[in-house]
């Protein structure tokens, strides 16, 4: 997931081309090398890693053993670094190096700039690097907004049922939202919720096809039905979760619409979610009237 964020950033900054990024995302380097991980974890400087790489070429020893021998790393540190070899962020960095796009020094500089430009704290950057969705969601969605746990569950369900390589963007609120296509469901009861997924047809197809396990070419009635059913399943799981807090909500049949505007007296929370490079907006309205016209 970090690869998507950092890759987009490198594209924006013209540090990488579209074809290079595509190649990296397709290549799936099986694992990151110890030197790269040690530098990323700031246990070695790039210079030390380079020195150890050179030594490794001359000696028939493993990188970790040479690092311990030189006194650069402890055995415990080597063991810890080995556990990170499958981390997607580190694999992305390994691919940048293997494809001679950037060296470790340049990557470190770019990550610092990325952090600064996006206004990320160390904690938030580490959350992105972790690839753990539970850590990533709070970076983009303020946990104090109403029914943030409903939003988080839809995102987790997108990862569970649709695609595990998604990118979130920071949420925002509007009173009016115009959409090309939307699938939505109203939940009524102790609280009234409107939950929708809106976007261009090619974005919604990225949800419809994997959920129905069928390749849709256009956003026809069946494809909309699939997105609606995904919402129905996700909202059902949410309703069952909150019933333990004595909050009872009933689901109305999901619906879909095209080329209209959603209006609300309250805030419409918009959470952009990128799936296969296309943006779908998750829309949530809590306890306020929603009008589609």
């Amino acid at each position, binding site marked *: 997931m970090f690869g998507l964020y950092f890759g987009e950033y490198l594209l924006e900054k013209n540090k990488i081309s579209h074809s290079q990024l595509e190649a990296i995302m397709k290549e799936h380097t099986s694992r990151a090398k110890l030197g790269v991980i040690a530098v990323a974890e700031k246990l070695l400087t790039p210079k030390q890693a380079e020195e150890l790489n050179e030594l490794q070429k001359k000696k028939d020893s493993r990188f970790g053993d040479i690092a311990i021998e030189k006194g650069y790393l402890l055995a415990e540190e080597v063991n810890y670094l080995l556990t990170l070899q499958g981390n997607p962020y580190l694999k992305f960095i390994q691919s940048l190096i293997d494809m001679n796009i950037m060296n470790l020094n340049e990557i470190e500089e770019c990550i610092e700039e990325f952090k600064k430009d996006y206004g990320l704290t160390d904690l938030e950057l580490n959350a992105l690097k972790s690839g753990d969705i539970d850590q990533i969601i709070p970076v983009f969605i303020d946990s104090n907004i109403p029914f943030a746990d409903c939003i988080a569950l839809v995102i987790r369900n997108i990862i569970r*049922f649709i695609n595990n390589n998604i990118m979130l963007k920071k949420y925002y609120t509007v009173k009016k939202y115009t959409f090309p296509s939307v699938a939505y469901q109203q939940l009524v009861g102790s609280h009234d919720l409107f939950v929708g997924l809106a976007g261009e047809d090619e974005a919604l197809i990225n949800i419809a096809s994997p959920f129905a396990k069928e390749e849709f070419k256009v956003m026809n009635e069946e494809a909309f039905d699939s997105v*609606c*059913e995904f919402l129905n399943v996700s909202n059902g799981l949410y*309703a069952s979760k909150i019933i333990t807090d004595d909050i009872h909500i*009933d*689901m109305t*049949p999901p619906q879909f619409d095209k080329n209209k505007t959603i209006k609300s007296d309250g805030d419409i929370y918009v959470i952009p979610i990128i799936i296969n490079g296309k943006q779908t907006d998750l829309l949530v309205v809590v306890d306020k009237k929603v009008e589609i016209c």
Partner: protein
Amino acid sequence: MAKILIVDDSITSRKILKNILIENGHEVIGEAINGKDAVSKFKELQPDITTMDITMPVMDGLEALREIREIDKDAKVIMVTAAGQKSKMVDALKYGAAEFLTKPFEAEQIIEIINRVH
């Protein structure tokens, strides 16, 4: 092998359920898209088992369950619910539902319930 009528307004849901049932040796003899359609197909097809979604337009699954059980007091109807519809599940039990299936569908759970009811 059971002869099954699937009732759900979602074509996606019907397809997923149908595939699981057929792969496990059952026969899907019909599909209905709402409660009203279900009552009419039930009379026509006389299935061994009916799977009935609860939340549907025109006539919901609870009303259809009631009507079907009036037609045949021994009708075996398995209610299909999105997780979290507990109050409706209680009503369905009162009307004589045989069992419950919850979405998202899991093949193992579906087959176990179908075999238990059949």
